[in-house]
């Protein structure tokens, strides 16, 4: 192997690899073109969002062409949208719904994955696949039996009812991530010391294993948190009062406005308001958002 590469090197005396020439017009041109290409692609990708931002910053009766970017800077549309979607309440509702759901998902999924990762038997393998299989079933399909189930259990339709579905639907992917991580990332030896010290299973899991799961917990919080925060479907099913609506559901009140150009300024302000909390979270916690996505994929 080694000799092969050296032979290749000798046959092809190309010094361009390491030594840097003082000036190379071709390379510079290539680099500039590449840079331009990236800028063009990014611009195309983001144009809709830029126009939405610019239009949202106009007063509601400014009906000039949206392509004249940023020709007015006013928060009047934001004020209207803010009131129409009851932004304060909706934001609070979203935070509460997402926080409770994600907390439950983390606790339930981490615990459930522990036996699936540690016990090597046909049963545990079955359990693992049984959870994973739930990923392919869309919620829209089973909605009516789900609602019947919730009714027959006597659970009232409140603003917290969707939490049941958020937790349930997050289990397949979360247990998949946790099980994979425990199998490959948490050696059994770390538990033996605790076992010898006489710690029971419960304490061993929460004091020894769970703290080692932080990377994958971040991943679960981010991936599941984003979908729960953005979901409108289960919210739409269980919540009917606007005072109980989280942000995406409040957006449904604007349905139809996208066909009506005179409503765009307010509609786009509402869109920006709806996206703002996650955008702010993303800008501060970027490395967790990006890292969280890839924990599962790199560990395989």
């Amino acid at each position: 192997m080694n000799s092969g590469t050296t032979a290749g090197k000798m046959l092809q005396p190309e010094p361009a690899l390491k030594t840097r020439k003082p000036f190379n017009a071709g390379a510079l041109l290539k680099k500039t073109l590449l840079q331009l290409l990236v800028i063009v692609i990014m611009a195309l990708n983001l144009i809709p969002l830029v126009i939405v931002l610019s239009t949202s910053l106009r007063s509601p009766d400014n009906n000039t062409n949206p392509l004249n970017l940023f020709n007015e800077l006013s928060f009047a549309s934001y004020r209207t949208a803010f009131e129409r979607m009851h932004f304060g309440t909706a934001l609070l509702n979203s935070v509460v719904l997402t926080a409770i759901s994600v907390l439950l998902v983390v606790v339930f999924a981490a615990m459930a994955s522990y036996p699936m990762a540690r016990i090597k038997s046909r049963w545990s393998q079955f359990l693992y696949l049984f959870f994973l299989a739930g990923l392919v079933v869309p919620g829209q399909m089973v909605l009516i039996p789900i609602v019947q189930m919730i009714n027959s259990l006597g659970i009232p339709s409140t603003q917290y009812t969707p939490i049941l579905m958020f937790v349930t639907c997050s289990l397949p992917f979360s247990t998949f991530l946790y099980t994979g991580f425990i199998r490959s990332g948490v050696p059994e030896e770390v538990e033996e010391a605790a076992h010898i010290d006489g710690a029971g299973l419960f304490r061993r899991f929460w004091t020894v294993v769970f703290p080692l799961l932080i990377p994958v917990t971040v991943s679960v919080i981010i991936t599941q948190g984003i979908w729960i925060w953005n979901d409108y479907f289960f919210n739409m099913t269980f919540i009917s009062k606007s005072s109980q609506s989280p942000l995406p559901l409040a957006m449904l009140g604007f349905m139809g406005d996208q066909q009506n150009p005179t409503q765009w300024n307010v509609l786009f302000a509402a869109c920006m308001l709806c996206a703002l909390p996650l955008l702010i979270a993303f800008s501060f916690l970027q490395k967790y958002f990006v890292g969280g996505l890839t924990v599962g994929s790199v560990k395989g």
Partner: protein
Amino acid sequence: MKSTVMKKTMYFFAVPALLFYLTFWIFPITKLFQYSVTDYNGFAQTFNYIGFDNYRALFNGGTLGNSISNTLVYTVVSVVAGNLIGLALALLLNMKIRGKGFYRSISYIPTLFSAIVVGFIWSYVYMPDSGMIATFLDKLGIPNDNLNFLGSYSSALYSIIFVEIWKNVGTTMIIFLAGLQTVPNDLLEAGRIDGCGGWKLLRYVKLPLLATSITINTTLSLINGLKAFDFPFIMTNGGPGTSTNTLIYSIYKMAFTEQMFGKASALGIISFILIIAVTAVSVLLMNRKEVSA
């Protein structure tokens, strides 16, 4: 030693999750099988068992074939195009480019938006006369009176698929980028020394090492595509005609608009089998590829 440390009582840890999962997911799914042989309308207390009439009606009617073909087009296009674009973006933003961290963050932004917001924004982009694309073409002096992305039978489906790709490509890209970080530098160096050009490096060194990322991205977008519901629901209502009716949107419409829950359940069972079959076959195929690569 091992068996005393890892006791079977550990299984109790799965109880809370299992309770939720069985009650609110598995049991309702089994109810679908029951409803699929009834004339249940979704809210009345009584219903009759009508055998396989629902299935027969579905196989004789046009909805089933139409929704399956729309769903398969949706899935294939979004998987193939989404992965190619995501890979291209990842390769591009893995090169030595000024501000690539910034560009990476920017391309991730659309994934943070709720499907509702994305649907609203793209309805504006596609709108005839005063929408974004139409006004752009106006400015360039290109006639666009006949251009109606969401209103024409031939383009509506592809237009919403494009939105799906736009929303998800950030995730695909991030997963490919992570995969690219695992490609060892000395392997690339060795390839270069052996005289590989950019294309050969990609084909014979990077792609085989990206096998895991490809499997993950393909599986995720496959499931996403087969479950497609959001954009037909928000942007087109399945129209014009039935041209953007995906399986799940058809089920939803049948159950809630037409109040034929029995028939919708039958369609649900068929979709369920289809989704499982397609996912299983492609995961098996990719696993085999991954091992041989």
